[in-house]
């Protein structure tokens, strides 16, 4: 390793070149959105990849009215509440699946799998009607409830994988010392499972943040419309004009925090995403 041969240098160069291509492919669409968001409206149709005339007007524009800021608040509030609830509910179920013996567990796991495959569009028409009848249409809970449902399978899988990695002896020791199963869970397991819960929370948050179909179907106003839905409803100065700059700016605003988030927690995210895949 200390004296790289000519062959190694060539191999390294090839790898570096190949990897640069991969990285560029991953980054370019984001750079493009960023570039559009900084382009002066007069240059938006110049087809240039980089802005020729820079401006911050697009950002000033989207933050000037409540259309986008309110949607941002909705997005954050709805995603955070759904995430907290999902992690709480899923932790209990995942612990039971990972550790306890009870009849019906197989059925539960099967149901969870079915929900993971459930097509959201099949829920849109019945929920649209139900929510209007019970007053949940265009409210935060109206979105939080289906988000919770659809994120539970992901959360249960990820968490039960983490629970299984905690040595069983710890609980046994707690139980021998007189702890009830519930105490064993809250005092011994839950603190050790905290990293798993953080990972799960990140995955669920990204899921809720990303949702579009339910967000445009079950909301109708600023009261609960989330950012991706609001962006799709941005309108230009005239009906023939698409507000490219505003959409790009708003898109970048809701993308950057997630990308930073994903970079900071990358190890956890990778571990969480793959926990279900290989331990069969």
């Amino acid at each position, binding site marked *: 390793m200390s004296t790289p041969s000519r062959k190694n240098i060539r191999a390294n160069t090839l790898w570096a070149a190949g990897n640069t291509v991969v990285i560029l492919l991953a980054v370019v669409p984001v750079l493009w959105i960023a570039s559009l968001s900084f382009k002066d409206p007069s240059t938006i149709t110049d087809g240039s990849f980089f802005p020729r005339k820079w401006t911050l007007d697009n950002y000033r524009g989207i933050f000037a009215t409540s259309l986008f800021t309110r949607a941002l608040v909705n997005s954050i509030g709805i995603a955070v509440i759904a995430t907290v609830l999902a992690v709480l509910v899923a932790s209990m179920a995942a612990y039971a699946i990972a550790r306890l013996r009870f009849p019906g567990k197989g059925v539960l796991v099967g149901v969870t799998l079915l929900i993971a495959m459930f097509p959201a569009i099949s829920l849109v028409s*019945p929920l649209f009607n139900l929510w209007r009848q019970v007053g949940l249409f265009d409210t935060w809970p109206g979105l939080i409830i289906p988000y919770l449902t659809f994120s539970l399978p992901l959360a249960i899988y990820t968490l039960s994988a983490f629970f299984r990695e905690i040595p069983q002896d710890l609980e046994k020791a707690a139980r021998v010392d007189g702890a009830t199963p519930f105490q064993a869970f809250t005092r011994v397991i839950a603190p050790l499972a905290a990293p798993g819960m953080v990972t799960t929370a990140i995955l669920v948050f990204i899921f809720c943040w990303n949702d579009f179909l339910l967000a445009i179907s079950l909301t109708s106003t600023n009261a609960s419309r989330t*950012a991706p839905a609001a962006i799709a409803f941005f309108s230009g100065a005239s009906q023939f004009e698409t507000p490219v700059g505003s959409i790009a700016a708003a898109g970048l605003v809701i993308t950057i925090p997630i990308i930073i988030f994903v970079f900071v927690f990358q190890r956890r995210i990778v571990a969480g995403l793959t926990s279900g895949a290989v331990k069969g």
Partner: protein
Amino acid sequence: MTSQPGHAAVLDAPAVARPRRRNPPAKPALSEGTRAERRLGWLLCSTAVVVMLAVTAYPIGYAVYLSLQRYDLRFASQQRFVGLANYATVLTDGLWWTALGITLFITVLSVAVELALGMGLALIMRWALVGRGAVRTAILIPYGIVTVVAAYSWQYAWTPNTGYLAGLLPSGSAPLTQQWPAILLIILAEVWKTTPFVALLLLAGLSLVPDELLRAATVDGASRWQRFTQIMLPLMKPAILVALLFRTLDAFRIFDNIFILTTGANNTRSVSVLGYDNLFTALNLGVGSAISVLIFIVVAIIAFLFIRGFGAAAPGQEVSSR
């Protein structure tokens, strides 16, 4: 259940599949403890079960009911039972079959491409001499980005005059306004967004392939291709099947990319977009619900075929055996 001698758990229902070996927790009074454990198990799962079923089973039942009604939101007072008329409307209409065909085409092509590219990326992330970490970090960008935002990025890239990619095409071409070019660009957007997920799953599978085994095979004269097909692929099978199952069902539900890229114009609708349009553009709750139910049935058939075909690799069984 017979594998636990000494704890002849009389109360234990034998029907529960529990392939995992493990000792029951130590407890002072056996049957009392077992009963407490079962109670706790049910208690802990009850919230999740209620939430999952209340928001899926009940609405899908309600969708079946709605699909049997004539229910136009513009004439809500004329709602009445019409039997299977809505299904007849949908199934005799070319739009449903076109949308189904397009959805299946998008699903098959994008999943195939994602598996191939994902495998390549997984190999890079495992063995690249330079830049492994950078690749691992970079591919999280497509994973993390909001699908709608990525779709806008692609849409503007292909829009004549505006886009950097449109400029590469012969002048006058607007690929997003023609059926097949648009479908291919939809697939491209889908592949870009979800290949990282596939790659990470495959990388996890690849990490189960021991280096010594590959070295031994090299010594025995196995070519690169033989090492790949005869050692890596068999060992990665569970990871590949999980990626295949989840991505297939996910791709079949495609909505966001199409809605932004073409809004379903020029016959680029997927079944999900068709369902949405019937509900929110045509305002026909009866027909929209019939489409919802049909999509549910198709997804159930796909899932059933997968689990039938690859039984042992079904994620559900993994959870109980992990």
